[in-house]
Structures are given as C-alpha cells and as structure tokens.
C-alpha cells in the first residue's frame, strides 16, 4: 500500500502526526464556530451562481490583489505554488494514492509533469517568500506591520517548501535523477560526491522535517492571521451581494433587540467570519482617507479587534466539547465567556472618536482582497451610539433636529427650496402644479434637486446648470419643490436610522403620489442617487433614478445638446474628482469622463486616485455636518492631489464634493488661486451653443470667503 514511500523508515508515523494536526485544526475551527452561534443571523446564501463566480474572480484569480501589482504577483505565486506543492504533501499523507493514480496513464508522463510543476512552483514560492520577507524587513511599506506572526508564517511556508525540495534533491543525489524533478535534479549534482550515508540521513531529516512543519503549520493556522487560507473562500462566497451602498435594513419596531451594534453578539456571524479572514495586509487602512490625514480611525485595527473579541469569548472553552449528557451529569459549564460577549466594541476594538472619523467612503471595502465589509460595521456601531446611548458629536444635534423638523440638515425653510429657480429664463414647474393642471403625464423626468442644491448658494448654480441643460435638450422636467425632503442619507450614515426612516417614508409617499415608480428621476447628488436607488427599496419604494452625469451623457450621445465647436483656443485643463457614492459605490466612472471628452475645449488630466479608487472629499457619512478637528483636513489633502495635476479646474459631480473642494482650494492659498471647483453640469452648460448657453448657467466667481 505504501509502495511509494516504503523506503522511508517509520513512514506510518505520518498518519498520526498529520491527521492528528488536521483533527486539532478541525476542533479549533469548531470552537471558533461556537462564537458564531452566539452572534446574530446573517443570511448570505441566495444567488449561488453569482457567489460561485465571485470565488473565481476574487479567490482564484485574486483580482483585487493585483491593485498592488508586485504584492499581487507575489501572493498569486505563493497561492498557486502552494496548491501545486500540496499535491505532493497530499500524496504522502494518502499513502501514495495520488501518485499511483496520476502515474498510471501515459506511462507516468503526467506524474512527471506534476513533479516538474512542483519543482518550478517550489522555486517560485521561495522567491516570492524572499520578496515578502524583504518587504517586511527592508522596504517596509507603511501598511505592513512587522509582526511575529508574519515572520512565523513566512518561516513555516519557507520551511515546508524548502525541506520538501531539499529532500527531493538529496534523494536524487543518492538514488539518481527523478523524472521531471528539474530543480531537485540540478541541486543534486553538487551533492553526488557526498557520503551516501550522509545523503540518507540528510534526506530523512528533511523529509520528516517537512512532515513535522506541515503538521505545525496546520496546528498554527486556527489561531493566526494566516487562517485566511481556510476562511477567505467562505468569506468571498458569503460576501454582501446587495449594492454596496445599501446599508443593512433595520426594524425599529422590534423592541427586544439591541438597536445597532454594541457587542460582537450584535454582529452577524458573517461579520465574525470577516474578523477571522483578515490577513492584516493593511490595504484598508492604507486606503482610508481619515487614517491618511492623521485621525485615529484604522479599519484594519477594527477588524482585528473584532477577531480578538471573538477569540476572547471562546477562551476557556474546551477544545473537545463535552456532550450535553456529561455537562448535565457533572455540572460542567461549557459556554462562551459571557463577560467577553458583553464588551462594547467601541473603545475595545475601535476608539470612540474613530467611529465618527469615518466618511463611509468605502475605500477600505474596495481595497480589501478578501471582501471584508468595514463600513456596515461602523454604521452599526453608530446606530447603537445614536439610538441607544445618544452619544455622538454635539454638532449633530442640530443636523438631526433640522432634518427631523424641516427636512434638511441645515434647517433652512422649506419655502426657500425653489429659490434657485428665480434667475432662470424658463419656468421650472413643480409636480404639484402639473398634477393640478392635469399635465403630469407629459413629464419626461423628475429632477430631484437635493438639499444642497436647494439651499447652498454655490450649489444652486449647479441646479441652474442642470435645469439649463435639460431645458436646452427639450426635456420636460419638473421638481418636487417644497414637497422634497432630505433623502435621509446623512442621518442614516450618522447612525440615526429613525430620522432616516421618517424622511424616507415621507419621500416615498410623495414620489408614489405622483406616480414616480413608473418614471425616471434624475439627480445631481450621488448621495440622493444612492439612497433613493439602493436603499428606498427596503422601505417599499422602488424607483428608477439616474445620476445627472449619466443622463447628460445620454443627451449628448443622442445629439440633443448642441455643443459649441470652439476648438481654436487653448484647451482648459481640468481634473475630475470622482464622488465615492457615484464611482466606488455605484461604479459610475465612464459617463462623466465621456461628457468631458465630448467637449472640445476641455483637456482631462487624471489624478492617481480616481474612479473606484477615488479619495473622499471628506464630507461623506455625515462628516459634512461635523467639525474636523483631529488630524489634517481630508478635503485639503484631496485638493492637493487635484492641484498636483496642474489642472485649472476641479470638476465635481456631487454638491458636497463641491463644497469641500472649494474649501480646499481656498485653504490652499496661492496654489489654489484661480483654480475653480465646477460641477460637470456647469462645464457642459457653459459649452452649450447660444442661445441655450445664455439660459442662466453662470460661471462661478473666485474662491469663497468665510
């Protein structure tokens, strides 16, 4: 039976050693799962084909790893190399079964090929490990922390691979070349002169060392950050499939539950799986704009902290659980440490300030190769702080109150909602007026203006530009006017689910009243866009909403917007600042660029951080209504990146980005002087052929004061 390994003395010992390790691994994993059972429900099982496809893209092809090309290649090599090498190890622990089967056809050519592949893989893995060690010890990129765990893992993998290769080489030196073992055979050449007894001792030492290291590796895994090799497949398969911009629904009427997330018991079990999947690679923290500007938010530390809380909860549990019979008979307690389950996540896994530093930009989620969801957890923590503990930055008191009382975070009078239309040369009807006149059916689109464009003087100009473009293209549109309210996006992302649901319910009712489920809504605000499009469905409102960049691009493509073909003058260099809620959350990156490409007077200069990897302006997640007193300002950092392109204008596609970039430009002093922040719709409106262009879209003045 053990023909292949008959010459290895004591070969049978392999079985207890390795299978013992596997048994320990299984028991340790089962102990982890018992904490999962204490956590809340998650139900990520529907859509099997999509989930399976995700496994191919993210686990096998490791698409996200290649955002960092060199680290990606390194990881890809180790991953696939390790799998190839595992064939050999598996053969050993299966008594040579694999070899027996694979070597059977084609006179063993297949097994020879496998051996060759393993040899090459071994070299590849060793080189990649060398690179990984060099990064940790020498080049030391900011995101990588040098931990003992990381070095142990590198050492274990290197040991497993190195001993196997060396054993093969020593065996080749002793008993002649092995078919396909190109590397081992080459290594054997200089060893041939050695004493055969020495070669045999060397071979046995390496062979057993390999087995011992494999067993050690398996035992080490469950308690290490390297567990991801077991969990990431599950984590990827069980990932959130809802739009990333859709925060988890919440039942406010359920009285017995904890509102939001306070302890790990309030998380879903999938959130704990996130914790056990984190490899501490630091991509999330590296991508985090709050972290990059000196704030205490560290998404990796939060995920690690959640894992530590989960591990604390299982501490004291027997590895082999007692049966209920034994527990009852001897009065044994075999439960999770209740104290650890009661530890609030805030301050244990993430500092209180950091919870509020988050701009919910999703850069961490986007960066994570194993699809961990950070933002939903942070919002869950905020929900608990707001709804149960009423602990939040004091500035939010006013914003919450204003949203609740007058339907916008600034507390501006509803009566002012139509003020932006005053200077327009064409009328902007409200849906109510059309309904009264019985002409609602003639409507092409409803323009959802949003609070910023209704009340903020600068963004009112954007609303005028949007309306001017629509009017120039002959689109019949209306607005809700005083019947529009904040969508609730800021409230929701600040954790105030109650105010969100009140506002959302009101808006859904209004939109349904005018039959908007069967029409198209357009908006220039990515936050309104995301919330109406991705979140209102939770509350029974399914609407088709289009961002103005997409809608205007469509009008351009259809030839409905006459563009001045003024290509003579020097081109105006602009850069495009992608909005997180548009580009990252909703993958809208091509259309705004296409609009700019269509304008002969515009030259687009891209920033390094763009499209789905864009860098937040600092206003998301309700940060627009909070003071930013910790660290430096996110908007100033983003403006610095924009100015580095040498652009004369920063094109925005979100009212909050507009405000933040304008602030950033004025804070940049001389460097920002003469550089404008301008919305995509304004760029377009300014390029319209007269008389359409005369229709009110005015150029903006210099940087703001005060």
């Amino acid at each position, binding site marked *: 039976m053990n023909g292949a390994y008959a010459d290895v003395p004591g070969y049978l010992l392999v079985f207890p050693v390795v299978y013992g390790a596997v048994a320990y691994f299984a028991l340790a994993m089962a102990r982890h799962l018992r904490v999962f059972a204490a956590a809340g429900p998650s139900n990520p099982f529907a859509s099997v084909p999509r989930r399976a496809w995700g496994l191919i893209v993210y686990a096998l092809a490791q698409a996200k790893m290649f955002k960092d090309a060199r680290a990606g290649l390194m990881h890809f090599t180790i991953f696939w190399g390790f799998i190839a090498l595992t064939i050999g190890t598996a053969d050993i622990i299966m008594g040579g079964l694999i070899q027996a089967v694979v070597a059977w056809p084609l006179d063993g050519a297949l097994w020879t090929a496998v051996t060759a592949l393993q040899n090459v893989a071994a070299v590849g893995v060793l080189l990649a490990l060398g690179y990984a060690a060099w990064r940790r010890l020498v080049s030391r990129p900011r995101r990588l922390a040098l931990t003992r765990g990381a070095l142990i893992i590198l050492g274990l993998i290197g040991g497993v691979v190195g001993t196997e290769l060396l054993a093969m080489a020593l065996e080749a030196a002793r008993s002649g070349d092995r078919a396909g073992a190109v590397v081992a055979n080459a290594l054997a050449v200089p060893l041939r002169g050695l004493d055969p007894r020495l070669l045999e001792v060397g071979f046995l030492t390496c062979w057993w060392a390999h087995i011992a290291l494999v067993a050690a590796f398996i035992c080490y895994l469950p308690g290490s950050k390297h567990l991801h090799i077991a969990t990431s497949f599950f984590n990827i398969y069980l990932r959130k499939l809802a739009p990333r911009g859709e925060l988890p629904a919440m039942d406010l009427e359920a009285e017995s539950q904890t509102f939001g997330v306070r302890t790990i018991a309030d998380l879903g079990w999938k959130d704990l799986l996130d914790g056990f999947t984190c490899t501490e690679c630091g991509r999330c923290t590296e991508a985090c704009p709050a972290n990059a500007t000196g704030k205490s938010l560290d998404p990796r530390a939060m995920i690690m902290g959640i894992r530590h809380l989960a591990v604390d909860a299982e501490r004291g549990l027997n590895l082999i659980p007692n049966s209920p019979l034994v527990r009852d008979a001897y009065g044994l307690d075999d439960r999770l440490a209740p104290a650890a389950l009661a530890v609030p996540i805030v301050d244990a896994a993430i500092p209180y300030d950091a919870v509020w530093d988050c701009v919910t930009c999703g850069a961490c989620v986007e960066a994570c190769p194993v699809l961990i969801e950070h933002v939903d957890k942070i919002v869950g923590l905020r929900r608990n702080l707001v709804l149960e503990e009423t602990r939040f930055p004091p500035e939010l008191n006013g914003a919450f109150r204003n949203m609740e009382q007058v339907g916008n975070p*600034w507390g501006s009078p509803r009566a002012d909602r139509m003020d932006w239309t005053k200077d327009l040369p064409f009328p902007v009807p409200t849906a109510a007026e059309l309904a009264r006149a019985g002409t609602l059916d003639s409507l092409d689109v409803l323009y959802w203006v949003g609070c910023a464009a209704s009340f903020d*003087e*600068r963004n009112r100009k954007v609303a005028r530009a949007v309306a001017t473009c629509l009017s120039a293209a002959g689109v019949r549109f209306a607005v809700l006017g005083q019947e529009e309210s904040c969508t609730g996006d800021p409230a929701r992302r600040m954790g105030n689910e109650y105010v969100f649901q009140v506002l959302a319910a009101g808006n859904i009712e209004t939109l349904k009243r005018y039959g908007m489920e069967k029409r198209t809504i357009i908006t220039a605000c990515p936050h309104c866009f995301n919330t109406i499009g991705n979140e209102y469905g939770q509350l029974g409102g399914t609407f088709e909403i289009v961002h103005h960049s997409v809608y205007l691009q469509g009008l351009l493509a259809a030839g409905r917007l006459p563009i001045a073909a003024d290509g003579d003058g020097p081109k105006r260099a602009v850069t495009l600042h992608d909005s997180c809620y548009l580009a990252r959350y909703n993958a809208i990156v091509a259309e705004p660029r296409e609009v700019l490409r269509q304008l002969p007077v515009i030259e687009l200069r891209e920033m390094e951080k763009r499209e789905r990897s864009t860098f937040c302006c600092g206003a998301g997640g309700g940060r627009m209504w909070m003071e930013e007193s910790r660290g430096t300002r996110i908007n100033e950092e983003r403006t610095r990146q924009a100015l580095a392109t040498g652009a004369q204008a920063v094109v925005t596609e979100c009212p909050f980005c507009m405000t933040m970039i304008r602030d950033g430009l004025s804070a940049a002093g001389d460097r920002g002087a003469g550089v404008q922040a301008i919305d995509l719709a304004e760029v377009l409106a300014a390029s319209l052929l007269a008389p359409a262009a005369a229709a009110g879209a005015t150029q903006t003045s210099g940087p703001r004061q*005060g």
Partner: protein
Amino acid sequence: MSGAIWFIGESEDGRLQSSGAGVATLVRQLAAAAGADAVGLIVGSEPERAARELAGYLPSVLWARSAGADSFVSPSAQAAVIGRLVAVRDPGYVVLPATPAGRELAGALAARLQWGVLTNAVDVSWDGRPIAHSIVFRSDLKVRSAFAGDHGVITLQPNVVTPVLSGAAGTLEEVAMLDGELASPVRRTELVTGTAAASVEHARVIVTGGAGVGSREGWALVESLAASLNAAVGATRPAVDAGWVGYSQQIGQTGKTVRPDLYVALGVSGEVQHRVGMRMARAVVAINTDRDAPIARYSDLFVVGDLAVIVPLLIERLRETRPSGLPG
C-alpha cells in the same frame, strides 16, 4: 387728563443705566402727547446720582434708597416697592427698558398689579392710549397693539430712541421705604462685570468676521467695531480655524445659532453653513470685496469695499454720532 406715565430706571454702580436715557426720552415725549405727567423712579442702594441724571430727561423723579450694605435689590422686592407706590400714586402706565432686568421686573409688576404687558416695543405712540409698535418673527411682521384697559406695563427696546435732554432739571423726591420692604429671600454672593467676551447667543448686536478679514491684524478691526457698537464678536468657521478667535464665538452649522437685532458681517461670504446660524438676525449689514458673495442675498445693506478702509472710518463716525448725554 390721563394718569401719569412712569419710567422705571435701573441704576448701575450708582449711575443711570445706559439704556435708560433713551427710554426716558420716549416717556417724556409720550406723556407730552397724552397731556400726562412723566415720572421717573429709581430704586437702589445709591439712587441719588442716577436720579439726578434721570432728572435731566424727566420733569419729576422719585427715588428710594434700599437700606443695608448689600447693593443687591432683588427684582421681586423692587416690584413690591413699585407696586406699593403705584397703588398709592395711581399712574396710568409704567414703561421699562426691555433689558433682562427690565423684563423680569415688568413680569413681576404685571402679576402684582394685574395689568397687561406690551413687550419689546420699538416705538410707542399716543392715540388716546399708548400704542406699542413691535416687530415679531424676524423682521417681517410689524405689529401695533394696545391695552384693553386704562393701565398697563410696557417694555421698550433699549437704544431705539436717541436720548434728548429736556433742557430743564426735573424735581427730585425721595420716597420712604417701609420696614423690611426690600428684604428678599434671594441673595447675591458674587458680582463680576466687565469680563470675558460677551456671549453671542444673547447679544442684540453682533459683529462677525470671516475669512475675508484676512489676518490677525484685520481681526483687531472686527473687535474694535464690536466695541464701538457694544456688540458681541462672532466668527465664521474659517476665522476660527485661522486662530483669530475662539470656537465659542463660532456662528453657523457647527457653531452657535444667534438671533440679534443687528448682524454686521465683515468679510463673510455667507455660505449656507454660516447662514444657518444667523438667519434669524433681524437686520444684516455686510461688507465684502466680492460683489457676488452669497451674503449679498441675505443682507439688508451690502457694502462693496475694503474692510481696512471702511471699518476704521465707520468706527470714527460712530464715535462722532454718539450723543454727549450718554455715559460710556
């Protein structure tokens, strides 16, 4: 002939409180229109000097000295004295300045006498009875109101009437206190005046500086103008960020919400984040170099110009126009 119209003055460090002269002037004019006597009344620990000052505005002044070393007279005790004097001398109407002290005294007096109260008048005219003109709910609504009966208490906004001396010294009369009349269960343990920046929340006038102020030196202009208008100093977020002034003075979305009668905005662009903190201001004057600044839409008077030129000139002009009869 109607009953007399009384003015209740406040004395402060032995002098007539600055808001008093204007209100007294109006009482004199009102009484003349009504053909009634105008009478001033001062109750305090050192009332004579204030009473003499008041006699410059009114033909007849009563004063009463509170006994004891403690200069503090609680408003309820004042109301008790005044209520007794009113019952004895039977005036028609009592006018007080709409200051914090004047308001609480008016409330106590109204309750004691069961007289109606008209509050926060910006003017009082006579048409067979006093007609109070007031402004409620921002500056939109101008209301004229009157008493249903023959008596009433009026509080008049301070500083709305320019003080004018009557040209003749009025008569002074001391009224005696009854034993224990000024005894009050309310004790004062400490009095601190002339300290710290006036808080913006209660200020009737606020001078606010924004990024357009430009520098720490420029900020000194904001503070001097505030001093010459007796105003509190406000700031926008950029001004606070620049370190020119503390966060306690920040007005706007993430700062304070204010509702002054006059808001002077210097170098403030008027973004919505700031606007939300000051939109309750009754009147807004803005000075800015940028003609297109959003604040223009929210101002009553918008001055395009350089702060460094205009503000010093304005301070000088305000100093010139301050009438001589006014203390401080």
